[in-house]
């Protein structure tokens, strides 16, 4: 067996051309950070510098490779060549079925690669400064690089199995990182919560994978016509009916979407994301704003052909409709909650949830390009916001309640400037990045064939977004200082990433303006050009106008309520004064956690109690009964032998004893006896073999 393994050569069917094209080296991008993680896992605690430099170095190499890959795809696109290249290799082989792994390089993955590695790198650099005084520095960087590697793996994987593996590693690292300060009970609880909640989604995801494999009998997305996302497989899936009038494609799409929802905190499963803010701020920035939560969205984008297969009414399918509705409602819902939070990071967390809702809705209504565009821009400015928040917290001595801050714009000018840029981008003020991407989503929503409601929901969400961001900013940076102790600006190593990200937050949007929809064209790999006439398209300008008006209205409202007058730390919130009951509800996040606690948790708790009770009383009772019976029997026995058969009984006992001795001799603890039995057995077996089996 070993021989064959030794003999068997390992030759993945590489893409054509020389071995060292970027496509064939693509696996290095996730492999390097993972390697760094492994190495720094072996490092001793005091080797801080080495571990951080390992992580940063490996990720920067990955960034370099990602840029090369991006350029490769870009050139292919501009040359009009096919932009998708895959490398597949067989991992295991059970009889006829292969378990294949592989990686794909296409515009989607290229863009994601660059985004993830770039933002990740910035956050690594940032966290070298932020975690400086933590004694588990090396562990932190080990986890970070592991996460980065897994995330990149998710991005490039061409096999749904590989994607799922990396997906799970991502989940694990997020668990580890949320619970990084595990000595804080809240952090530990949050970590558990995140893990369990995402599991719920992942179960469905796994079911989807299995079903997909069962239907298409391949794990690869693209495999020169044989992949599961390629037309003929999709045809088969469509032909295959499932329950509730869904096709198999629809059902699988829904299952996969459940996984995505779990990972990127869509409505029923969003509860873990705000609690995840217990982790260190760079983690929140990296995992719970920029990359990991985007994994869900990315997953949907990756399997979009499946989702889109067999478009029903109004160019949408059942699964896409579900995606849209879930996304839209999440957007509004989270935005509402965010209005009434006081923890600076929680506000951002809820805004992340709502933005993810936007992305989902964008995917559902506008297609891959729209959603992904918002994903990219959002990744940049939300990472910026989180790191800004981190720097604020750092400056205010780990203070997280915005009511105890204020007037920081003079204390931390750099942080303020960058934060403001991020806030404007998030709220979608014209010419800022968020404006264009959100606008794309709104436009898609306005043209959606199924229903108009999502459009209004999203507009309302935009208003609320502007409102709560203004509230937060004015609480934190304006007004007179309510913080005890003087806040100081963060070190340069933390500011540099902020500045870089801020620049992107301002400018990135121009890649996808209606006038020059470069990004969309790139993702769909269709040619494009600059053409300002596109602004003149029907309903585009009015739409942009409305959205910017809405945004400005939101900002104005926020400013009027919070910015103009600077409330004291302990006096009630402006909203609380005006609309108390609504405030209470929002403040308690619509009681979702309580709801789950009252239903699911209570349910399991109940059954646990039942089982416990059964143990205690029923089974325990039976046992007690049996023992009592035997007890009685024994007493009776003693009575008998005391009175009648004393001698006989003793004799019997001796007999039994000697019999036991005979048996015990088998196991007398002497090695040789055991050896003997062994040899005897061999003899018998061999004899049997010779007599009956020998003829064969």
């Amino acid at each position, binding site marked *: 067996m070993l021989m064959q393994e030794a003999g068997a050569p390992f030759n993945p069917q590489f893409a054509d051309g020389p071995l060292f094209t970027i496509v064939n080296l693509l696996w290095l991008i996730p492999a390097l950070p993972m390697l760094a993680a492994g190495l720094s896992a072996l490092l001793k605690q005091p080797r801080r510098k080495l571990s951080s430099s390992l992580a940063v170095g490996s990720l920067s190499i990955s960034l370099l490779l990602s840029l090369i890959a991006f350029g490769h795809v870009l050139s292919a696109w501009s040359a009009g060549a096919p932009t998708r290249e895959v490398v597949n290799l067989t991992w295991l082989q059970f009889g006829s079925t292969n378990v294949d792994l592989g990686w794909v390089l296409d515009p989607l993955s290229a863009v994601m690669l660059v985004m993830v590695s770039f933002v990740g790198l910035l956050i690594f650099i940032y966290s070298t400064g932020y975690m400086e005084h933590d004694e588990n520095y090396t562990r932190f960087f080990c986890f970070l690089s592991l996460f980065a590697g897994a995330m990149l793996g998710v991005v490039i994987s061409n096999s749904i199995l590989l994607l799922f593996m990396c997906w799970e590693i991502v989940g694990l690292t997020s668990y580890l990182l949320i619970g990084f300060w595990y000595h804080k009970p809240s952090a530990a609880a949050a970590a558990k919560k995140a893990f369990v909640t995402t599991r719920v989604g992942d179960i469905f995801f796994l079911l989807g994978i299995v079903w997909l494999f069962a239907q298409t009998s391949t794990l690869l997305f693209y495999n020169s016509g044989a992949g599961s996302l390629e037309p003929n497989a999709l045809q088969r899936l469509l032909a295959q009916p499932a329950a509730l009038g869904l096709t198999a494609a629809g059902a699988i799409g829904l299952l996969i979407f459940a996984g995505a929802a779990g990972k990127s905190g869509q409505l029923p499963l969003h509860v873990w994301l705000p609690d995840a803010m217990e982790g260190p701020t760079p983690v929140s920035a990296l995992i719970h704003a920029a990359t990991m939560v985007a994994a869900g969205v990315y997953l949907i984008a990756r399997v979009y052909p499946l989702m889109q297969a067999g478009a029903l009414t109004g160019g949408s399918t059942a699964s896409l409709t579900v995606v849209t509705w879930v996304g839209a409602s999440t957007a509004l819902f989270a935005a509402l909650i965010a209005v009434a939070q006081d923890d600076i990071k929680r506000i951002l967390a809820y805004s992340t949830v709502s933005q993810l809702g936007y992305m989902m809705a964008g995917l559902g209504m506008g297609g891959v390009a729209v959603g992904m565009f918002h994903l990219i821009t959002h990744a940049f400015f939300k990472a910026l916001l989180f790191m800004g928040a981190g720097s604020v917290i750092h400056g205010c001595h780990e203070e997280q309640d915005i009511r105890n801050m204020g007037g920081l714009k003079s204390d931390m000018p750099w942080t303020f400037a960058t934060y403001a840029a991020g806030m404007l981008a998030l709220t979608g003020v014209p010419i800022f990045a968020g404006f264009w991407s959100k606008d794309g989503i709104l436009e898609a929503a306005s043209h959606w064939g199924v229903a108009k409601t999502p459009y209004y929901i999203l507009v309302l969400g935009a208003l609320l977004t502007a409102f709560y961001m203004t509230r937060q900013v004015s609480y934190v940076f304006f007004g007179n200082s309510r913080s005890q102790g003087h806040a100081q600006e963060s070190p340069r190593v933390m500011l540099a990433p902020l500045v870089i990200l801020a620049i992107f937050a301002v400018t990135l949007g121009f890649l996808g303006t209606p006038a020059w929809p470069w990004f969309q064209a790139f993702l769909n790999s269709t040619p494009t050009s600059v053409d300002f006439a596109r602004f003149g398209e029907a309903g585009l300008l009015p739409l942009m106008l409305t959205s910017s008006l809405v945004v400005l209205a939101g900002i104005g409202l926020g400013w009027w309520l919070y910015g103009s007058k600077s409330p004291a730390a302990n006096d009630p919130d402006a909203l609380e004064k005006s609309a108390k009951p609504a405030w209470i509800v929002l403040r308690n996040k619509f009681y979702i956690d309580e709801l789950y606690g009252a239903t699911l948790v209570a349910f399991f708790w109940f059954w646990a109690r039942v089982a416990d009770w059964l143990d205690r009383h029923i089974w325990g009772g039976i046992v007690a009964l049996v023992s009592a019976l035997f007890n009685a029997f024994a007493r009776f026995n003693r009575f008998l032998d005391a009175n009648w058969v004393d001698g006989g009984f003793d004799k019997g006992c001796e007999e039994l004893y000697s019999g036991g001795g005979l048996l015990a001799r088998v196991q007398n*603890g*002497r*090695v*040789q006896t*055991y*050896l003997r039995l062994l040899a005897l057995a061999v003899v018998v077996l061999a004899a049997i073999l010779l007599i009956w089996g020998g003829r064969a």
Partner: protein
Amino acid sequence: MTPLAAYLMVAAILFAIGLAGALTRRNAILVLIGIELMLNAANLNLVAFWHYGPNPGALTGMMFAIFSIAVAAAEAAVGLGLVISIYRHTRTTDLDQINRMKG
């Protein structure tokens, strides 16, 4: 009697001798010696089959023998080490007295 059969017979006898030693001697070290003999009998079998087999060019049998020699060396080292440490605890190597290996 063909040569192969002769070799096999020698190996069988050697194996039996080794087994007998392992089963009857009281001294743990001698039990190990018996086991070594058994191993060598197996090696002899392997080499004989290699030599008289259809294609000795494949070297399989001899490789197997060489590997098993190497493994036997390791086995002897560990086994004797165990015997010595046992001897340290119970000042004897008499297997009839070392009977702690029971439930």
